[in-house]
């Protein structure tokens, strides 16, 4: 280490450190995802936190901007792209950090420490019932314990802070029994550790390259079926490139970013443009990407280009294209899988955000859906316990309607609530009363394959076995899927009072198996009516609403 120790940070420097933290998290995303309490293939904390922070990293403003303003933009970008509970908490943390640095042009370690304290405070405020043994604890314990010494450089401070975070993380299973039982540490806490590790690496002049996959973030496999060949282009193309600026074509040294941006503004919107070290990095939503590329080519040559039709982006909401007239009530739901999304639309949802189990929608996707439904009262069905915070965050940010978030924690609960929708009611309270009347009696059951060997709830589970679980307990396991379903139902404590079982069946289930299950269920529990919907979801053979 030959560099001089850093004792003040400019906006550009802090941004670059955060970007390094983001890149380090991204490199370790799979490891964070794997920290899953249940042996089910739905870990997504790493991905959620990465995509959340990416919103901040992409929000780059001109680097000469003061620290306070730059962080404000960074925090705003993070807030909008927040997804998953860990993402929302992270975005609130960043937002507190930005508040702590407001109006500053640079900061010292003590000033950053105070801002980090504000970040901790704000992340606790984000959750109604903070749980210890999570990322909240990891941040609070370490930020509170490690106070910069007078004159201490950032790298030494971060070194001590990181050690404290690692210790706190290792301790999380002692605070949270589910972690201990599963033999894992908290995934969100681990994500924070990777972010701060990346920042420390930057302080030690170890800058991470943007890895190839980082440049394809957000461009997960597309649902081609959502693009009708006769559709008109509705959303344009998300266009991104990195251009090597060439002295033969433009003035690289005194590169005029502002005039580039103003030309781009004629070609599209949602523009992010950064010029750094002879590279120009651009993100733009445009109806004429070919013109964007031709314009860019006048200044240099491309290192990478990617162009995505936004109508088929995985995260795009499935929607009718024309603007809707103002409604009194509208329901916005999230769903995973086209089958489930269509079922929701069919029974009364105005808008379905295709969240996917491992691709949670962000705050801004909720906001976009709110704008599209155009209603006085918007009722949101997050349908996933990991989306409730994101939905609430979006509801708070949205000012054009009265937005109510019903705390549906699963597709099954969401389906149950939506099936009871009576939009003819006089008031939003009545609509909500009807939708939530039976929610306390809904039990959500899942059948999937175990991703690892485990002993849970007295059941010996082998990797790839079918396991049947409710939201919090594994109740059945075995190699015969039908048996697992029946045993799962039989072990529900209140099965004799249940009247309806609705199956959302996945891509791997044949109708014959459902016929057999239906016959057996009605034979064993004559009071129960069985329904089935083609969910076409991934990962789960069955998602069942038992009510």
């Amino acid at each position, binding site marked *: 280490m030959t560099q001089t120790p850093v004792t003040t940070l400019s906006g550009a420097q802090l941004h670059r450190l955060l970007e390094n933290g983001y890149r380090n998290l991204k490199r370790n995303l799979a490891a964070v995802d794997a920290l899953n309490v249940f042996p089910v293939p739905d870990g997504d904390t790493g991905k959620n936190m990465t995509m959340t922070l990416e919103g901040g990293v992409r929000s780059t403003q001109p680097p000469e901007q003061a620290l306070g303003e730059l962080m404000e933009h960074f925090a705003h970008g993070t807030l909008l792209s927040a997804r998953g509970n860990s993402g929302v908490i992270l975005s609130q943390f960043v937002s507190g950090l930005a508040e702590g640095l407001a109006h500053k042009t640079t900061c010292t370690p003590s000033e950053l420490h105070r801002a980090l304290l504000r970040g901790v405070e704000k992340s606790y405020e984000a959750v109604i019932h903070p749980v210890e043994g999570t990322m909240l604890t990891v941040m609070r314990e370490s930020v509170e314990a490690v106070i910069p010494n007078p004159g201490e450089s950032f790298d030494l401070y971060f070194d001590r802070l990181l050690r404290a975070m690692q210790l706190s993380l290792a301790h999380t299973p002692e605070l949270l029994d589910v972690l201990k039982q599963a033999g894992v540490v908290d995934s969100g806490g681990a994500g924070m550790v990777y972010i701060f590790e990346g920042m420390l690496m930057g302080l030690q002049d170890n800058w991470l390259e943007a890895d190839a996959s980082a440049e394809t973030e957000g461009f997960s496999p597309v649902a081609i079926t959502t693009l009708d060949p006769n559709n008109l282009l509705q959303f344009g193309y998300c266009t991104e490139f990195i251009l090597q600026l060439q002295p033969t074509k433009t003035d690289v040294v005194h590169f005029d970013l502002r005039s580039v941006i103003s030309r781009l503004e004629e070609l599209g919107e949602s523009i992010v443009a950064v010029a750094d070290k002879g590279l120009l990095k651009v993100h733009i939503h445009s109806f004429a990407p070919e013109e964007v590329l031709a314009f860019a080519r006048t200044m240099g040559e491309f290192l990478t280009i990617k162009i995505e039709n936004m109508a088929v982006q995985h995260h795009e909401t499935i929607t009718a294209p024309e603007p809707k007239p103002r409604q009194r009530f509208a329901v916005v739901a999230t769903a995973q899988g086209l089958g489930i999304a269509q*079922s929701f639309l*069919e*029974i*009364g949802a105005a808008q379905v955000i295709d969240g996917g189990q491992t691709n949670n929608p962000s705050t801004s996707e909720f906001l976009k859906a709110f704008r599209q439904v155009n209603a006085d009262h918007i009722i949101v069905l997050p349908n996933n316990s990991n989306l409730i915070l994101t939905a609430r965050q979006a509801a708070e940010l949205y000012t054009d309607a009265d937005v109510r978030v019903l705390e549906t924690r699963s597709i099954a609960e969401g389906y*149950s609530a939506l*099936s*009871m*929708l*009576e*939009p*003819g009611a*006089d008031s939003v309270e009545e609509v909500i009363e*009807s939708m939530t*009347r*039976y929610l306390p009696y809904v039990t959500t059951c899942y059948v999937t394959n175990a991703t690892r060997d485990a002993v849970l709830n007295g059941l010996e589970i082998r990797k790839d076995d079918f396991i049947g679980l409710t939201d919090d307990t594994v109740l059945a396991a075995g190699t015969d899927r039908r048996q697992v379903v029946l045993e799962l139902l039989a072990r529900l404590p209140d099965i004799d009072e249940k*009247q*309806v079982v*609705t199956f959302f069946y996945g891509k791997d289930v044949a109708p014959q198996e459902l016929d057999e299950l239906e016959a057996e269920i009605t034979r064993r529990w004559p*009071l129960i*009516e*069985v*329904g*089935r*919907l083609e969910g076409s979801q991934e990962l789960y053979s069955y998602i069942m609403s038992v*009510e």
Partner: protein
Amino acid sequence: MDCNRLFAVVADSTCDLDKDLRDRYGIDYVPMNYILQDREYPASLDWEYHSAREFYDLMRRGEMIRTTQVPRQVYLDRFARYLAQGLDVLYISCSSALSGSINTANLVGRELEAQFPGRRVRCVDSLISSLGQGALCMEACRLADLGQDVQAAADHITAIRLTANQVATVENLEYLRRVGRVTASSAFFGNLFGVKPILISDALGRNFALKKIKGALNARRELAAMTARLAVRPEEQTLYISHADSEAAAIQLRDLILQQAPFRDCRLGCIGPIVGASVGPGTLAVYFFGQTVTTNAEEAGQ
């Protein structure tokens, strides 16, 4: 039945009165028709052509059963028979919102009054069907036995018809929707597993989907609670429950109601082929005299 009645009480196939009740009260009915597999059958309330089980099993298997109105000639022959005996005719029809038969009956009545001077044919729209219509017919018989004339009886039935209440539930609304005999917001349709609509007969005699209940047992509980709430002087009246091949559920429903409302007695009946073809197997309908129905499906925002 009193042989000195001044008028005959005639219903149609939707009144769902079984032979025992019809004989006891002296109620005649004119049949509508149902069409099954391209053959037309008179809609017999005694299940002469298909047993109730056969009929509803065919529906369960997806067989479409269509229905037709009472043919003009049937009205002519039946009404004329009574007029020729020197009796007037009080025809209490299926709700005009569900069947147009009463229009034919009115025309036939005027024609026959011309043919039989001094005789009268009165047609009253019951604004309800099944045993609700049946209960109004039985009430008309009571007046006939008291020696009232046809006009007084027709006026009385017209005056009280909206106190005949229906609270009902169906397995699903698809049957009713297919034949256009329900008023319900779109939220009642689609793959709503386990969601049971609660149907009332509104002030214009339309089936109106009032609310949703989750689960068949919960729906029965709701019907019982509504009956207890809406019935007036239950101790002085008979409770009628009609069902479409779902007797066990009807018995359970009866017990639930009688726990909450002290009806004098209760009569279970099978929903006949005409109402059955529109509502589908598994339907349960409760009929009683209660508060006057004022709900108007359209004003209720549907």
